[in-house]
């Protein structure tokens, strides 16, 4: 094999790096708008899924406009925070803050029959990675209307079952406050919640740690909204 001088090796590496850098950064810049759009559409799809509206990704924009009538951000004291766009709140960053300091996005949806639903985002830890989703409430700010969960890398067939309809439909009709108005959240009960329990759903067999993570996520994320929900209930 031919011998190459050190100078040649340096020049070769430098030229190679510059070419590669230009190539990759231009590809990233050109494709970024499309990628951002995909992420945004997926988010809209899951927000809509929490109010039982299933749409293909292409139509997510239009349907989102139709149903989601307003969105805003509140704080843990139940006051509206001005000047923050609910859609762009980074949940992964927010849940690292204590509840009192978080920005809490709220989406208001108006369904075809004119009923008002309140959607809030959730994010927490599963067994292997983050789990997240949206949960919607009737306008008594207590009864769950629907919920949707997703995950990055929970075990297929076990923890990953949280992303299935069978698991998610259990949440409909559950309540997050008891008769005295105390915040109870929703428990995910191993071995099955007693029939008629308004605050519990069945855990996934074999997916105990993911179930526990989901329960913690619900309690943690929803606790921030207690003040806001109470205020709304009083106003009624």
């Amino acid at each position, binding site marked *: 094999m031919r011998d190459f001088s050190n100078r040649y090796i340096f020049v070769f590496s430098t030229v190679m790096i510059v070419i590669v850098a230009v190539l990759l950064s231009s590809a990233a810049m050109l*494709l970024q708008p499309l990628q951002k759009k995909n992420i945004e559409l997926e988010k809209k799809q899951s927000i809509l899924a929490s109010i039982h509206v299933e749409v293909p990704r292409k139509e997510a924009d239009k349907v989102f406009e139709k149903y989601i009538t307003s969105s805003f951000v509140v704080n843990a004291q139940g006051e509206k925070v001005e000047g923050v766009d609910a859609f762009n709140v980074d949940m992964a960053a927010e849940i690292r803050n204590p509840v009192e300091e978080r920005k809490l996005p709220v989406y208001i949806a108006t369904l075809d029959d004119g009923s008002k639903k309140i959607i809030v985002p959730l994010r927490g830890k599963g067994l292997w990675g983050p789990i997240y989703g949206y949960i919607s409430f009737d306008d008594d700010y207590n009864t769950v209307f629907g919920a949707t969960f997703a995950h990055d890398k929970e*075990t297929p067939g076990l923890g990953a079952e949280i992303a299935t309809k069978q698991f998610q439909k259990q949440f409909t009709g559950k309540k997050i406050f008891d008769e005295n108005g105390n915040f109870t959240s929703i428990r995910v009960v191993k071995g099955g919640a007693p029939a008629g329990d308004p605050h519990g759903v069945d855990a996934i067999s074999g997916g105990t740690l993911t179930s526990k993570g989901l329960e913690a996520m619900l309690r943690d994320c929803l606790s921030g909204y207690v003040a806001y929900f109470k205020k709304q209930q009083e106003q009624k």
Partner: protein
Amino acid sequence: MSEKEPLFSSKNLKLITDPLNTNNPITVQVLGICSALAITVKLEPAIVMALSVMAVLAVSNVVISLLRKSIPPRIRIIVQLVVIASMVILVDQFLKAFAYDVSKQLSVFVGLIITNCIIMGRLEAFAMANKPWPSFLDAIGNASGYGLILIIVAFFRELLGSGTLFGYPVMEKIGLYNIGYENNGLMILPPMALITIGIIIWVQRSKNRQLIEEK
């Protein structure tokens, strides 16, 4: 190799056909097993993975082959890695923009194409010493050999594990559930991919005795 050699001479064709069978990167050389285990739960991601590996390997092989005389041997591994890594990032970016669902399913495994031993193996063993056209064929052959096994494994895992093919509920349509059939949840988990590959290797060796090592 003479300049006038036809594009698809028998020697060149062997570059494509050998890796499909007697020199298969997965079942004979046992390379690239990690990704074969991880993304073969369903057919669709397996096919996209196979195509992604083919794109990365074909371009990298040709690029390295074109540069083979000017790459200083002392930094050749680094150069190979840079070429592979840039290709993988490009593929990843394209999938995120145009096939978002699939890119989510493949998640980290697109990035891990970089560490797929098949690719570095072909660059180092073939492209560094051959002309661009044979290198291209070699890349297509090896990626097809890899993809072939991936698709076979994914076929059985999706069919037996989820009862579907490309998401179409085959088992339900032929009415197996009504007579008490149930999906085998174990097929979805990684160990069954290894066992499926093991069975493929077994079948291949019993049909093709020359592959069996002498004791």
